Every structure is written in structure tokens, then in C-alpha cells.
């Protein structure tokens, strides 16, 4: 069983894991960070998106062992003091969430999208969110939230 050391939400973590343990299982079950969700078993839904060395990944598609030495950020990292960041506030303001289950993955994808393209068009946002399924909102308010969140983050 591999020993892994990684940085999760700015904290160093060293654990022994089973080789088959998925990163999402490690995050949820070993670390107890249940904000990252599992909505499918075929890497389609995107509820499990986290940042791995700054890039958005579906954490159901990464082995925990592959994250050895990496920096992982989950939804819990965005509002460490309970104060929502501009993207989270934009989702709140635009009613960009309903049941909330896809939301952590959606927000983490949006954060990565905006990091790469700080001033996206609506079409770029819709394209960028293709890997995340929301069944509640019809996406319209999510797209509005991401555009507005991007604007707020540009300052």
C-alpha cells in the first residue's frame, strides 16, 4: 500500500492508502472533506472536481497515489473563514444553485475557468462548464453567476 504525502487546502497530509483508492474517496473518507461529491461512476457529472496543482480534475478519475506530492484544493478551501469568495457570492446572488449537489464541482470548475480566462464570453463559459452536469437550474443562472464572478474577481 503506497504512502503518500500531499498538500490539501494548504495543509500537509501523509497517509497510507490502498492502491485502488480514488482521490475523491481519499478526500471524502480519509480526510472527511465531504464538500466534494460523487454523482456518477463514469467521470461524466463533474460533482467531484477539485484543483490538482492548480488544474481542475475530476477526482473520481485520479488515484490518490497519483496525487502524491501534489497540491490539492477542494471547495472547503475557498471560504476558510466562512466568508464566501467572489465566485461563491455570485452563485448566491444569481441563484446559481438549487439542490447544491453539483455546486462544489461547478464552483471549482468556474474558478479554474476564470483563472485561465479572466474575462470569458458567455459562450466560453457554457463551453467551459460542459464537464459539469446540473439537473436543477437549467444552467442560465450558473452562467450568469460565472460571468459576474469573473467580473468581481477581475476587480
Amino acid at each position, binding site marked *: 500500500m503506497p504512502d503518500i504525502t500531499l498538500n490539501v487546502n494548504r495543509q500537509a497530509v501523509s497517509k497510507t492508502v490502498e492502491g485502488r483508492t480514488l482521490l475523491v474517496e481519499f478526500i471524502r473518507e480519509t480526510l472527511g472533506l465531504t464538500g*466534494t461529491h*460523487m454523482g456518477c461512476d463514469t467521470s461524466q457529472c463533474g460533482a467531484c472536481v477539485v484543483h490538482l496543482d492548480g488544474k481542475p480534475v475530476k477526482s473520481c478519475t485520479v488515484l490518490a497515489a497519483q496525487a502524491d506530492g501534489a497540491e490539492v484544493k477542494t471547495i472547503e478551501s475557498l471560504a476558510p473563514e466562512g466568508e464566501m469568495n467572489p465566485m461563491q457570492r455570485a452563485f448566491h446572488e444569481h*441563484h446559481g444553485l*438549487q439542490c*447544491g449537489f453539483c455546486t462544489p464541482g461547478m464552483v471549482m470548475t468556474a474558478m479554474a475557468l476564470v483563472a485561465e480566462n479572466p474575462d470569458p464570453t458567455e459562450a466560453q463559459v457554457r*463551453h467551459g462548464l460542459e464537464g459539469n*452536469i446540473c*439537473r*436543477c437550474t*437549467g444552467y442560465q443562472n450558473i452562467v450568469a453567476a460565472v460571468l459576474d464572478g469573473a467580473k468581481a474577481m477581475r476587480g
Partner: protein
Amino acid sequence: MSKVNIGERVRRTEDLRFLTGRGRYIDDINLDDQARAVVVRSPYAHATINAIDTADAAAMDGVLLIVTRDDWQREGFGPIPTKSGIQKMKDGSPLRQSDRHCLAMDRARYVGEPVALVVAETPAQAQAAAELVDVDYDELPAVIDPVAALQPSAPQLWDDIPGNLCLDFELGDREGTEKALAEAAHVVTLDIENNRVTAVPIEPRGCIAAYDAATDRYVLYNASQNVHANRDAFATQVLNLDKDQLDHIAPDVGGGFGAKNSTYPEPPLCLYAAKRLGRPVKWINSRSESFQSDTHGRGQTSRVTLALDADGRFLALRTDTVGAIGAYAWTVGPFTPTGGAARTQGGPYRFPAMYYTSRAVFTNTMCMDPYRGAGRPEATFQTERIIEYAARKLNMDPIELRRKNLMPPEMLPHKTPMGLDVDSGDFPLLFEETMKMAEAAGLTELRAAAEAKGRKFGFAIAPYLECTGGGPKEHASVTFNPDGSVGLAVGTSSTGMGHETSLSQILAAELGIDLDRVRFVQSNTQATPLGGGHGGSRGMEVGGSAVLQAAREIVDLAKPLAAHLLQSETEDLSFEDGRFAAGGGSVSMADVIDASMDADRLPDGMEPGCLDHSSVFERGVISVPNGVHAAAAEVDPETGVVDLAGYWVMDDFGTIINPMLADGQVMGGVAQGIGQAFLENIVYDPDTGQLMTGSLMDYGLPRADDIPNMEIGYYEGQPTAKNPLGVKGAGEAGCVGACPAVVNAVLDALTDFGVTHIDMPLTPQKVWRAIKDGGAHDPEGLMRAVS
């Protein structure tokens, strides 16, 4: 936070935890010493189960218990009969059903049917052992299509139910309709398939069951949207318990759309296993299992016939439907294709005569239960498709044809030929407002832009009429706490709709207190003695009315105290904007609440806590939300790919509690309708009954670039008098209006090719094929064998 009003776009209180990863969904809960369960499911659509050998599985590492049909029979656990709102056949005899147990007994009748439950220390151990449960099956012929299931030669699901027929049904004036059809200038007939789909809430189902031997009581945490009804069925029908032995609690639930309403087999299996082991048992469905084992919806084949006079006035509508209900008569499954789809036939149009007949048919598939709309989307689709089809066949303008036949406001209140009590609304006004919205968006320019790209452009408008449903009673309980917080417990179940905000908003607005004082509790059988959960767009209609009623009764309860504080008489008091006033003085409700906890400030005969109050609201007659959808579509004739270029909605939901949340309901509902129209389809192999769309790789859900922006407007000019809030219901209307709007828009775009009908989903392949076939289509091809 300050005061709130009804009708205000109040931001949601639940958002903070959902946006920061602190939601608490079923898989986020772990109980000490819990074991993990995995269900062994039938790989066959229809098979005799000869024997189940668990020896190898039981010997695996970590395995604690394997539950089979032998346990169920030995314990004498009962089946779950259907609660379908229609229980009698046309001839008055009871609907035909056989026992639906939590595990397959003599035969498995659909792929995914539970055959055993394996419980182990870890999920991986349970999964590994489940694969070693050796079930000796003899495969039997299966039937998947409901029309085929009615054929005399079809495989039979039940020995004691002839012809696979669960329920037949009729409603309306058969003779009058036949007479009108015989005498009409024009009669148009079209067979329509409403494709089988499934809800796919992004959170899969799951539960944790625990048992306390000392008290002989159970607690079930479950991703359910109907904890009271589920509790009653699990306790009294299956496990032979008293209701109060089982506490049923739903934590945050990640979407439901009807599919988390049903009485599923897995929770009772886990409750039983928890008792046997003396340990909590947790079960989480995988997504792929969800496609096999979450209830499905729609799945109806219909022949629709419209009679018109020479001027295009509607004379009669006749619908003959065959609806698949799956292998068992599930929670309310037989109701949807019968009474469910009948009620709103004919939509908001004037029809002198209507007749609806249908058959609910057993098939070797997962079972049907309500999916958002449950019958009303089917009825609206049938009505709007036959109108559009008739316009094309008779060379009439489809917009004018609709305009001419809408019920005028002076016709209301009106009981339709289907018995629906349409009390209020202004259908022509909403129709014209929707047309204005679309025209203001530039239909001419959109058409020019599409044609400049070599695409065909289409536009369609689809009025709808729907109705609420679900449990008629709701309980609201309000407690005033010494710390200043106000507890509100309601028996509804939000699975994302935002009741924590909207129901609290009603209470806070009515009492004139700060919203952030309200602590909302739902979906907990300990917190409310009764509750109707969620379904039938009843959240604000019934739940909101219960909260309003409780709040108004609290104001009455507070009057003696307010009068005491103002040194006046109760009958001299007025209450407005959260303040009691009498003479020149006034006191706020907030002050009265504070005084109600202080024995020194209370008059004789009142005790601290005297304002705590519960109320039960019971709906008399279901309400009738209505509205109009319109869509613009671009079709690429080279590829069959459709892009939606615009979408407009006007809704009459009566009073809107929170327009932001109403928008969310409309947008999400429309997206689900668009999904059904273009992408979603549950497909079983017609011969073997194997599920071909068993994962999100195979079942297409709409993604961010599949759904257009929608422009949404509300008409609040005629709130209903059927409930004290004036609410008509908002939750399902989006997907009631969407399918006909977008499908008719695509068919409008295909006029030049002679294409008059394509069954959903309108995939690029089907659209392209229809174009290539030049509109060749048999309008009576689906129902010929059974009409």
C-alpha cells in the same frame, strides 16, 4: 437581515452551506460502527429464480450478513401495494396487481430487480461478495414495449393477470366525442410516443438504517422527498412495525424530481439488516445502478384525434394511450397514464367534447412513478402536437389556430370535459404577451441570421394548463425560543427548491420578524406529525398555505398579550406590517414574542411559550397553474443538429412568493423538457430487456451549452381563491410546456422538407433521417396493433 415581504427576491439561506462544502447529504453521514450494504440485482429482464447460494459470498472477508427471499418469507414481511389514485378498472373491478416485495421472490421481472442484500465491513468487501452470490436463474421471454405487451402472443409477467393489463381507464364523453368526430369537417389523427426517461437527480439514492434494541426503535436517514409516506409504508406494510417505531429523516437531498418520492425496496432491507446485525447499515446506490433501479417516467404511446369545423374551431379531442408501468404497480405508477394524463387533456382550449381512454401495462422494465409533471407533460404534448399537426395538414396558421380556440377569460370559472376545475386565468392575454416577448427579441432577425448560416428556422408557441397534486394536507409548527430564534417545522420536502428560504419568508413576512431568526426544519417525522413531502408542485400551495395559516393563527393568539401590553382591548387591535396598534400606541410582533417568554409581562391566564403553535392546512381543490411557452429553433439540414435560438415563457402561478426561486423552477423544468425532447431516452433491448442506457455515458443529459437563455414573465393578476396564499404552483410547469414548444419549433423549421412528425428525442440522426425521407411517416403506425 431585515424584514422581508412575500413577492421579494430574497436570497437563499441554504446557499452558504451548499457553496462552502458544508451541505450534509446522505453519503456525508456516517454512524459509529456502521456496516455497508450492496444490492445483488437481477441481470435478467425475466427469469425464474430456482435457488440462491450464498455460501461462497458469506465466506468472503468482512461479510456480515446476506439477506435473501428466505429471510423475507420467514419474517412474514409484506408487499407494498400501489397507492394509485385510480384503483378500479372500467368495469368497476379492482386494478390488477401482484405482490411487490423488497426482493424478487419466485421470478425476477426486470434488470436491476433486487435479489439479495450483502452487508460487509466495507463497500469494497460487500461489492466483492455480491459478485459471488450464486443465483440459479432460468431466463424467460421478456416484453419491453407496452403496445407489444398487449398482444395475445406476448410473454406474460403475471400468472394471475391476463394480458399484462394492470388498469384500464376512461374519462369524458365518449358518445359526444364520437358524434363530433363523425360530423366534423376535419378530423386529424396522429400516433405519438412520449419517450421513457428518468429523473437523474445528481445525488444518487442512499440511506443509513439504525436499530436500538433497548427501545425496539429504528431511525432511517434517507435521501427521500416523502419521509412520512415512506415511513408509513416501510413500517406498517413491510416490516410489521408501528409507525412510531421508525423515525425517518431526510438530510440535505441532492435533487429528486419525483424519483425520490417512491417507496423503494432498499431502505426496508437496510432496516432489517440493521436489526439483525445490531449495527447501522449504510447503502449508497451507484449511478449505473440508479438507471436500473430509480423509477422511470413518461413512456406512453398515444393515438390523438382532433376534430375541427370548417373554420378551424375545435369540436372534440380523443386520446387513446398505452402506458408502460414496468414490472410492478409501483408507489403510484398506474395513475400517471390514466388519471394523471387525463386531467389536463385539451389544455387551455375550448373543447365541447373530450374523451380519454388508456391502459396501464406491465412490462419487463424498471417501474414507472411520477417524474416532474407525471401525466401533465404527456397531456400537453399530445394536445399541442395534434394542434400543430392539424395546422400543417389543413394549411392553417398554427398560431392563429391556437389563438382562435383559447378559452376566453369570460368562460372562467369552467369545468373542462376532463373534470378539471379551471377557476381563474387569462389565457389570451398570456398568449399575446408571450408573442410580444418573442417578437421583441427579433424573430425576423433570428430567422435571417439562421438562414444566413444555411440553417432552417422554426418558431412555435405552446400554451399549457397543468394542475397540482400530491398530499392534500400539510403541517406547519412554529416555536418561539428564548434565544430569539423561531423554529419552523413543515412536512414538505425541499430537494433543492429552496423551501428553507421561501417558507421561512412567508412566516417572517406575515409576522413581521427578521428572516434570519427563523430556523427551518423539514423532512423529519419527529419534527412534524404529518407531512406530504414533495410532489405535484405542492410546496407553496399546500406547505406555504400551512405556514400562512399558522402565522395568522399566531397573530390571533398574540392579540390578548398585545392588548395587555398596550393596555387596550383585544377587539380594538389592528395588526399590520408586523405591528399591533390600538388607540395611539403600538407594539411590534417581535416585542410581543419577547414578552411571551417573560412571565412578568404576561397577562393572567397566559404562560411562557403561549405563542407556540401548529396548524394543519388541507387543500380542497387542486389548483391550475397555466402559461405559455415559445421557442425558436435553428436546424442544420446537413447534420440534423438543432440549436435553440430563443425561449420565452409567461406563467400564471398565482401569487409568487419569491420570483427568484420561481425563475429557478421554470428554468430547471424547461431544461428537463429540452433534455427529454432532444437527448434523454431510456432504451431497453426489445428482445432481451437489457438496459442499453445504463450510465451517464449512454443516457444524454443536457449540459450548459444545450440550454438557451430563457426570458420569463409572470402574470399575477388572478391569484386563485383555492388557497389562502393565492398560489397556483410552480415546480413542474417548466417541463410541462417545454417539450411541445421545442419539438413544434423544430418541425416548423422542417416545413420545406415535408416533415410533419418526429418522435422524441429529436436527435441529429433522427432529424437528418426525417429530412432525407422527405417526410415519409405513418401517422397511425404506433397504435395500429391495439386500436
